[in-house]
């Protein structure tokens, strides 16, 4: 789990202009780094990072994206 969480954070930190990502983008990036990672494990790792306050959800109402807390829009706008 820790290696997946690390891969998620590294991927989200790597975005130069983009700061919010779809789960599928995260999933692909994680599977590139941790080939045996399963989708459900990646989802659980994302949820754990949300609960730890490392990640935040960004929702338009119809879709949801993930971002690093403190990067890009993270407060009310």
């Amino acid at each position, binding site marked *: 789990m820790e290696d997946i969480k690390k891969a998620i954070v590294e991927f989200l930190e790597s975005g130069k202009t983009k700061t919010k990502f779809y*789960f599928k983008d995260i999933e692909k990036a994680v599977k590139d780094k941790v080939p045996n990672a399963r*989708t459900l494990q990646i989802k659980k790792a*994302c949820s754990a990072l949300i609960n730890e306050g490392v990640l935040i959800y960004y*929702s338009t109402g119809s879709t949801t994206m993930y971002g690093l807390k403190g990067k890009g829009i993270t407060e009310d706008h």
Partner: protein
Amino acid sequence: MAFEPKRPQKKLNYQELRLYTDEQLKNYTEEEVKNFKPKHDIPKLEQLEDGPWPSFVADAKRYALRRHKLGQENLLINEDVVDDLLGQLELSYVHGETHWKHGGIVGVIGYGGGVIGRYSDVPEQFPGVAHFHTMRVNQVPSKFYDTNFLRGLCDLWEYRGSGLLNMHGSTGDIILLGTFTEQLEPIFQELTQVLDVDLGGSGSNLRTPECCVGKARCEYALYDTQEMCYEMVMHYQDELHRPAFPYKFKFKFDGCPNGCVASIARADMSFIGTWKDDIRINQDAVQAYINGEFPPGGGSHKGRDWGKFDIYAEVIDRCPTGCMSMEDGKLVIDNANCTRCMHCINTMPRALKPGVETGVSILFGAKAPILEGAQMSVMVIPFMKAEPPYDNIKEIIDRTFEWWMEEGKNRERLGETIQRVGLQRFCEIIGVPPAPQMVKEPRTNPYIFWKEEDVPGGFKRDIDDYRSRHAR
């Protein structure tokens, strides 16, 4: 079977929950409503009050007055919220464009859905709606409420929100319209800890499952929609609150093919009650309808004189597959060709009843987008038993989720993924063999792609030989 909750049920008492006195809740007169002028001039909106129908503008003005009479000391968000809402809408009518900004980092801790951020792009002009976030509350199955709950909810929303709500949104949730970010967590706390309800789904989540009234009141219900809806809500909590799907996903549970929650037109996975055996016929009652002793359709059209009941014109000739006939004065149904349209049963409910071996048909891939036409769901599983603990159905759901999470593109609904990769592939994934019920018009277009291994003896096809005669 008696309802067995998965967690202790809370008994609510409004007298313990209430935030306002009766005098505060009935704080204006009709005379005051007539003379009330909202904070902003809204001539365009007021035209909407001219027609014969009730207008949301009239309701909103009435409610704006009530908030002013309650006073800011009894409200946690701006008492002008409704005035400002009307003012901003008027401005949108003038400009011909919206002044809302959608989405953002709003929600409650740990939840990825249930709150939809909305902000005004003219907050200086309309500070009462600078934030106007929507909260979705998971409705109880079939929307049976206790008035203690409803009154408690309205008090809470009046105190911490705009007081405006929808009963219900198209997914079935209670939609609480408009509050500020700082109120989200306290409202969530009150909803879950005091009123004992949860937030619903939004975003790339499983959306709040919805069911028809089912066996609670309807004789047509062919499985317990409430039980199944409740079970799925409790079982798929993680999918409801922690978004990781490519896009939204909806379950809807219709107890019979009449489809009162329109699952076939709106749900990615539609569960529609059906039967496997023959329609039960009471020939004496059929004669009674023919003789005019029973009103057709349960008397639903008795307001006008439609003439004597004609079983051919009103039932037999209307059967979409022509599977009904009269032989020697008896009604005969070729059940193998019945498509479960329900018309005959609806018209002669005392004479015809669904069979006794009941379950669900499972259809996939409907969506009802705003900008394009609705896409109806496709029959994939003609019949499946629907009994607790629903492990057979959960297995199909799990396979569907797993495949769609893998194959679906961002912002692509399940039905679009199925269309892109083909229904045949989808059937292979969930392990269902092709059947005539999956074909849209099997009587006119029975075409199916057979694979070599599907056909006894197989077949050989030389693609190079074919291309020598047919250009790509």
